[in-house]
């Protein structure tokens, strides 16, 4: 399995690539077949126009209709989006996730820890909500995302975001920590996102502090669980050996 190292090398190379050159394919998972564009041109035109109406109108069908008009479509054309306002939320999530690899570039020379990189990426993704101007309306988006019929789609997108962050951070673990890392980052990220909707501090300093505290928690819990595991393993071994020394056939 030389794939992880190759992936890392590709990642470093791709992060060195000048930004002006268009990136035609995602450099992981499918080297030979680029993934299909997530939205058709018509969908992108309407949704991107609609997103500019979100600060004023929120994540609503009104924003969607105004966007459709801006893009030269009719009010009726919003039938292109069967999930209504959630498709608008989804568009923001997907485009920002895909933009992450261009938004954050790690200098190739110095060695930055994977944990640091993950922090930078999570913060960059949170800042994107602010830059697009949807942070004031993000509560509405979260309310849409937790609707029972939409929960699976929202969780899938959250999982993809966590995966993207660990991948961009250069994590190459292929053991069970692959899952725990993604799960814990997804938890931390979504908690921070909820915190951010209520954050009144200048430049979202409190959000940054909150994120750091949660990441530290994960580290501490991870260390504690690791310690517990080690203790259980050691004690188990000792018990077995003691029993063996007493003549029990184990």
């Amino acid at each position: 399995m030389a794939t992880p190292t190759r992936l890392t090398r590709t990642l470093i190379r791709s992060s060195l690539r000048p930004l002006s050159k268009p990136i035609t394919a995602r450099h992981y998972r499918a080297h030979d077949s680029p993934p299909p564009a997530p939205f058709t041109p018509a969908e992108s035109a309407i949704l991107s126009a609609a997103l500019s109406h979100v600060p004023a109108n929120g994540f609503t069908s009104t924003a969607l209709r105004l966007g459709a008009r801006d893009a030269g479509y009719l009010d009726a054309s919003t039938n292109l989006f069967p999930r209504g306002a959630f498709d608008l939320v989804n568009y923001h999530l997907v485009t920002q996730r895909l933009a992450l690899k261009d938004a954050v570039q790690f200098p190739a020379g110095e060695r930055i820890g994977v944990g640091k990189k993950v922090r930078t990426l999570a913060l960059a993704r949170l800042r994107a909500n602010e830059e697009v101007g949807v942070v004031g309306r993000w509560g509405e988006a979260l309310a849409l995302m937790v609707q029972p019929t939409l929960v699976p789609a929202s969780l899938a997108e959250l999982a993809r975001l966590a995966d993207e962050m660990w991948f961009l951070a250069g994590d190459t673990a292929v053991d069970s920590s692959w899952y725990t890392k993604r799960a814990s980052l997804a938890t931390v990220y979504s908690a921070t996102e909820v915190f951010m909707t209520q954050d009144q501090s200048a430049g979202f300093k409190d959000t940054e502090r909150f994120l750091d505290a949660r990441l530290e928690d994960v580290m501490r819990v991870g260390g504690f669980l690791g310690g517990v595991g080690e203790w259980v393993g050691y004690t188990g071994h000792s018990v077995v050996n003691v029993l063996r020394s007493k003549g029990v056939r184990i």
Partner: protein
Amino acid sequence: MNVSTSKLLARRQLLLSARAAARREPYRCFSCSIRHEQQTPPPPGENGNRTTHFGFETVAEALKEKKVATVFSSVASSYDTMNDLMSLGIHRLWKDHFVRNLNPGSNPLTSRSPISPGWNILDIAGGTGDIAFRMLDHASTLNHDAHTRVTVADINPDMLAEGRKRALSTPYARTPRLDFVEANAEHLDMIPDASIDLYTVAFGIRNFTDKDAALREAFRVLKPGGVFACLEFSKVNSALFDAVYKRWSFGAIPLIGQLVAGDRDSYQYLVESIEKFPSQTEFRDMIERAGFLVPGKGWEDLTGGIAAIHKGVKPVEGMI
């Protein structure tokens, strides 16, 4: 292991018997004489005539229109009672959902567009006004839109007469918001190009002789960005539910038709035409071939696929 095998066998037997029933059924009607008299199919291909299906029969294309007309003229008066009995009232839920999802009408407070007040809706095969009245109600009460107009088009004058009669009990009678025209969906000559916001056809396209021609005509009359929406019977997804559904549709529906409407043949045709209608994916592909963009996977199943809503959006040229 044994249990699962026997289950599988039982299921297969059920399916086989349902299929056999479906094959046998057309010959089991009690009042075949009139139908045989009226509907002796001409030998296909005679005089180079193209043929199409009328239920399970094969008839010349020129004849299908007349035959469908006979069916709907005979059911027009008992249309609603029969729909309620056949679908156990669920057709009303489907129609409500269909209209609510399309969300017709523009709220004048948020739309900020003085150019085109309201939507221009064309309801094809909507003779009795079922969809039209719901559209107008939704636009007026939910979107506060007093300008949205519906043109109800139907090929059958008897169904239109039924719709006109019902319109009298709605607030839209004798207003410019509701209009009835007698028209064939394959030749909508009285409707100008690019003039319609929303084209709907509910439980109608199944009866069209040439569905592709109707789709092309829909594409012509819609404005760029306009929506084609179709509510129609479709294919049930689960094999077990399908077996039950086939029993109901081939066994009960013609019988209800005979008892309530006094017309078995029309309802025999109804269930056969449902059986003949293309599946969800096939119909989606037909809509795409006509030039429409389809949202998501292209359709939404209702009640396990007994009915389905298909939508298509006419693309805007040059905006891409």
